[in-house]
């Protein structure tokens, strides 16, 4: 598969559609699986890793879901291309930075991705736009069932699916939603929300997973435990809390409009202004400002921008995406200049095809 094809398309989670998509960016379910007759990746020899990679690839090709998959040989990719896949959320940072034979298989919709030889031999991921954990779970179940028919998963009758790290053992499931919570951040309620999430053993992470700093008010909420509950229960555990968070965020947004309308309008207008006129801008600042503009659009304070456009800009202004789109490798200074130019063109320039009519 040519990565260039991906730069032209937009990933599933960026479509900006689906239920509650004003707040819920995407819903994701991930399953960790290992092949029973090989050591876990961390202890596997170079040969073992290559064998596992080939074994999984060959077996998965024999089942129906295997037909629609495109493989990318991550082990032989340039760093910028690996970074590109991370930004796209198709592979994890760990998978990008690992050593040895490894690959990722992606379906055409960019909903399903299979990471081979990440921390576990196989990590199945299914991502849907908006709030649709059930849909993602139903889809990943089909994928898992098909692969299970041709691949002997390491399994223990008492401890379930066996994983390299005991924190994933059992169901091997990680259920997560990515939320955009700018009003809770502005009204300084976000820490309180997170503390209560920790109490019910849910984890909170930034946009780009494990250990990442939350930027631009985007947060991932996921289950922390994987053993002792059924997959459905764990899907519900995360799913049940989302409507509550959505309600908090909506109320905080209403509060902002009601009590500080002028102030908020000023903030989002300034953010919009910088994005449209800046001559050099970092990825972090871009994300922060796009987050504000996104909220402004949803509050009806900015009229001529589409939510799906902002979602796309969020990813296309990331370092690797920007460089792929421009077709050259750039150092960080040049990237900042190029990013600013890209944003100006997008908002003001000729390629305003994506622009809706100005109110």
């Amino acid at each position: 598969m040519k990565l260039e094809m991906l730069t032209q398309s937009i990933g599933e989670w960026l479509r900006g559609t689906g239920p509650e998509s004003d707040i819920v960016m995407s819903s994701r379910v991930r399953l960790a699986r290992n092949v029973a007759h090989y050591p876990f990746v961390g202890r596997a020899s170079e040969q073992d890793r290559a064998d596992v990679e080939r074994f999984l690839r060959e077996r998965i090709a024999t089942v129906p879901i295997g037909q629609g998959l495109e493989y990318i040989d991550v082990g032989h990719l340039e760093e910028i291309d690996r970074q590109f896949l991370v930004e796209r959320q198709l592979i994890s940072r760990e998978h990008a930075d690992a050593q040895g034979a490894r690959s990722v298989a992606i379906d055409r919709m960019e909903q399903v991705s299979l990471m081979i030889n990440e921390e576990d031999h196989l990590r199945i991921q299914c991502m849907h736009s908006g709030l649709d954990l059930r849909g993602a779970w139903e889809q990943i179940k089909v994928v898992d069932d098909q692969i299970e028919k041709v691949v002997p998963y390491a399994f223990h009758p008492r401890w379930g699916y066996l994983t390299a790290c005991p924190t994933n053992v059992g169901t091997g499931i990680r259920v997560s939603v990515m939320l955009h919570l700018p009003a809770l951040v502005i009204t300084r309620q976000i820490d309180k929300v997170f503390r209560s999430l920790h109490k019910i053993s849910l984890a909170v992470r930034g946009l780009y997973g494990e250990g990442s700093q939350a930027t631009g008010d985007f947060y991932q909420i996921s289950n922390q435990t994987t053993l002792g509950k059924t997959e459905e229960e764990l899907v519900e555990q995360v799913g049940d809390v989302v409507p509550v968070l959505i309600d908090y965020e909506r109320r905080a947004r209403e509060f902002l409009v009601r009590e500080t309308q002028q102030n908020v309008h000023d903030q989002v207008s300034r953010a919009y202004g910088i994005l449209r006129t800046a001559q050099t801008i970092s990825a972090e600042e871009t994300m922060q400002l796009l987050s504000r503009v996104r909220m402004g659009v949803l509050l009806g304070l900015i009229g001529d921008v589409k939510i799906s456009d902002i979602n796309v800009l969020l990813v296309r202004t990331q370092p690797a995406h920007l460089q792929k789109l421009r077709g050259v490798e750039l150092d960080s200074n040049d990237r900042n200049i190029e990013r600013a130019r890209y944003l100006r063109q997008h908002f003001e320039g000729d390629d305003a095809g994506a622009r809706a009519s100005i109110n």
Partner: protein
Amino acid sequence: MKCQQCDKPAVFHITELESGAVRELHLCEDHARNYLNQSELNQSDGPDAGGAQESEEGSPAAGDLPGPLGVGHTAGELAILDQRACAMCGITFFEFRNQGRLGCPHDYVQFENELEPLIANIHGSAEHAGRRPSRAAVEAVKQPNQPQAPLPPQVALPAGTDELTMVIGMRREMKEAIACEDYEKARENRDAIRAIEERWSLEER
């Protein structure tokens, strides 16, 4: 590696987590015992004793007391446990403790008793309640939870997919046999691997 406090070889490698910061210690047996005695005492002062520096509360200076019985024993026990290795992939319990990652599926059988409290602590449960692969379910027979002597590789465990995992150890043995030119043994290993793989219908097509 040398002990951080004297010239003897460091045999204890301790990672301390203190209010979010990580501190690594590499100590010989004597200094490790001293250190462990001290930290054990500090802890027994109460959960928030805050270490030896803050003793204005009037609690006895920790370092001056002889270690309570059992502490040295615990360290010794840990040292023995640390040297135990998985019969399949060869990972030692020490390596697992250091890396936080297991070496192969059989570790869950080999170190079952040691992992049990850890897993229960992480998940608040030690019983899988979710889906089961149809393949493993056929083989699944409830395993009595008891300490196990290391099994010779050819003995199949009637639980989950552990029989298939045995292939990892047999492959290792086969490589070793080839390295010492013991082709008879290597052939036996190869046949045993084939037998298991065929039972799980994994033979190369």
